[in-house]
């Protein structure tokens, strides 16, 4: 072998060894050595809530001398949490606590590494609102702790309403009122549109329709959970309503990733109403939009709405860390701590005893209309925690898309969604 080549190969081999060697000195703590339990906490949040959580982590570490929660957040935002935690679970290197979307929990629950908290000494799930409790429960077992809860209501632009001479929505308004209002507020010459609806076909598109299905006496799943509960009048009625809205020309179909365009339009006084949650209120305040909040309309007097809770999932990293993680999450979701960051999180209280905390009034008044969202929790229902929900969501999302784009009849779109969902429910296992 020519001398030069041999030299090259030796250098390469040395470099490779150096690279690998340099990193083998990394710390390898599993918290099982005597002393502090070290926890990794991937909260998936950024900006204001992340800053608030950082303060909470410091506070917790200060007051709990035998537990150390790392301030490293794992470098992952909530949107990518699923991919990263999945990779981690596969490789055996996963966090102790992670922020998980409520709609993903049922699938995470199939992993035995997700702790079963039903009999936990630290965590008392009954202290939370029923909606929050339900989204943390899978198959009757508590598998996570509620982290955030919200719900959908109608936020309307008072300035645009005044200019158009249209009265503000009343608390007992109906979907017919809503449709008429949207149509009146839509004005092509001024470029104002009545409302917006996400059009990408994913969960953002779908979850807005469940309140209509519930109000029409249907549900996502049937009683026994083996088939869907929205075949028939409830599903068809809901889809037909969306189709009517679109046919009126009052809907802005937002096809951007993350549905940002809708909010931008609302903030720029180009959209009269938006069906959204409390997380947008800080932006509206920043953008100096004058708005009001009204409960979702009703078909027959029942103003059901949907809540989309997210949860803290605790993973099993050995007994010591599991216990410490439960202590931490219990502390994090205590009434005082929940209130401490609720405003930054854009979350509503996850438990009734938050309302008794000092400082609660300040929180409610920090954002106009927030109180209405809190009250609305009484009307809120949640999606079922079943592993097949993502497929039902996709199927229904497609159907709603067909309505928005006026590409199909409600009955046909519904049939397709029902068939696909039922097929998914029949498949055993993953």
């Amino acid at each position, binding site marked *: 072998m*020519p001398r030069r080549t041999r030299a090259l190969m030796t250098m390469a081999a040395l470099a490779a060894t150096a690279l690998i060697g340099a*990193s083998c000195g*990394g710390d390898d703590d599993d918290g099982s050595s005597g002393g502090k339990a070290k926890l990794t906490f991937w909260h998936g949040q950024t900006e204001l809530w992340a800053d608030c959580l950082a303060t909470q982590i410091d506070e917790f570490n200060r007051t709990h001398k035998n537990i150390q929660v790392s301030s490293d957040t794992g470098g992952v935002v909530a949107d990518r949490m699923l991919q990263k935690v999945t990779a981690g679970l596969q490789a055996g290197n996963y966090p102790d606590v992670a922020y998980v979307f409520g709609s993903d929990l049922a699938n995470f629950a199939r992993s035995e590494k997700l702790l079963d908290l039903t009999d936990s000494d630290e965590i008392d799930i009954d202290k939370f609102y029923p909606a929050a409790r339900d989204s943390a429960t899978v198959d009757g077992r508590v598998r996570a702790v509620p982290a955030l809860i919200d719900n959908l209501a109608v936020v309307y632009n008072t300035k645009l309403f005044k200019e158009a001479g249209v009265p503000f929505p009343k608390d007992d308004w109906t979907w017919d009122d809503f449709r008429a209002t949207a149509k009146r507020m839509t004005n092509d010459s001024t470029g104002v549109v009545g409302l917006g609806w996400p059009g990408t076909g994913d969960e953002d598109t779908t979850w807005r329709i469940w309140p209509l299905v519930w109000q029409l006496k249907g549900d996502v799943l049937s009683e026994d959970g083996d088939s869907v509960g929205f075949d028939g009048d409830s599903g068809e009625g809901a889809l037909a309503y969306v189709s009517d809205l679109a046919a009126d020309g009052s809907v802005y179909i937002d096809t951007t990733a993350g549905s940002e365009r809708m909010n931008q339009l609302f903030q720029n006084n180009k959209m009269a109403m938006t069906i959204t949650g409390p997380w947008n209120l800080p932006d509206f305040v920043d953008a100096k939009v004058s708005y009001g909040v009204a409960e979702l309309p009703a078909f027959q007097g029942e103003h059901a709405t949907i809540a989309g809770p997210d949860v803290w999932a605790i993973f099993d990293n050995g007994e010591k860390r599991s216990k410490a993680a439960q202590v931490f999450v219990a502390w994090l979701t205590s009434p005082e701590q929940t209130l401490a960051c609720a405003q930054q999180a854009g979350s509503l209280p996850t438990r009734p005893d938050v309302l008794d905390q000092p400082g609660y009034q300040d929180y409610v008044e920090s954002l106009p209309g927030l109180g209405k969202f809190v009250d609305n929790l009484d009307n809120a229902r949640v999606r079922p925690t079943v592993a097949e929900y993502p497929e039902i969501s996709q199927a229904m999302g497609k159907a709603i898309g067909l309505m928005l784009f006026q590409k199909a009849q409600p009955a046909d779109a519904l049939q397709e969604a029902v068939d696909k969902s039922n097929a998914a429910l029949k498949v055993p296992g993953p």
Partner: protein
Amino acid sequence: MSAAVRRLPFSPWHLLLAPTAILFALPFFWMVLSSFMSNAQINQFPPTIIPDSLHVVGWDHVLRRATFPSWFANSMIVASVTVISNLIFCSLAGYAFARLRFRGSSVLLGLILATLIIPFQLTMIPTFIVMERLNLVDTLSALIIPGLVTPLGVFLMRQFFVNLPREVEEAARIDGCSRLGVLVHVALPLARPALATLAALTFLITWNDLLWPLIAINSEDTFTLPLGLTTFQGQHTQDWAAIMAGNVITAIPVVIAFLLAQRTFIESLTSSAVKG
């Protein structure tokens, strides 16, 4: 060329290139201008192009971040090592595929390209498992090792070497030069534009990579720049000014890399002696 055109004080190519260049450069300028807006202005719709005043809030947020220098340094380290390693190993392999006849060369080249067919969305998990077994998760090595040699580089260098005139190489062989010597002393100097291009492209791809660092890195001081910038993106709100500022900062080294690469083109144009 018509007489009328020749009377222009500048080359007529400018008439084509200038508008095209403006068209292509607009997104970058919009990015730069947006980085000097306030978040309120960026959120305006329809969007505005000129900042109403010089807001540095975006730059402030990014540069003030305590770990920002680490992000930059990490990206630099990973990208630089990857570029150097690719220059060496892709030249070696590319030359062998182009000039040396050996059994299995087509199959090997095909294999190297075939590794690209399975999407990274799937392969990232087993690759992560491998890194975990090697104890390299959350280190820069995890980012560097998979990129030490890229199929792009091997294939690109091969195509360039195929194109070089054989006579000069053969003359050197006759003079008793070893294969490696021919590569180093004859082929590589002729392939300067290709090497510069490979360096710039490898730098770009490594520098902008987001998905793999996201999976492989956990600690904020080990982030690369694109990964660090995701911390300005909330679920419902984004710090757009900071994101734009961050993207400008991210783009600058790459622009420099491509400018440097183009230098060698100009040098090669003038060094016609090499072609003799």
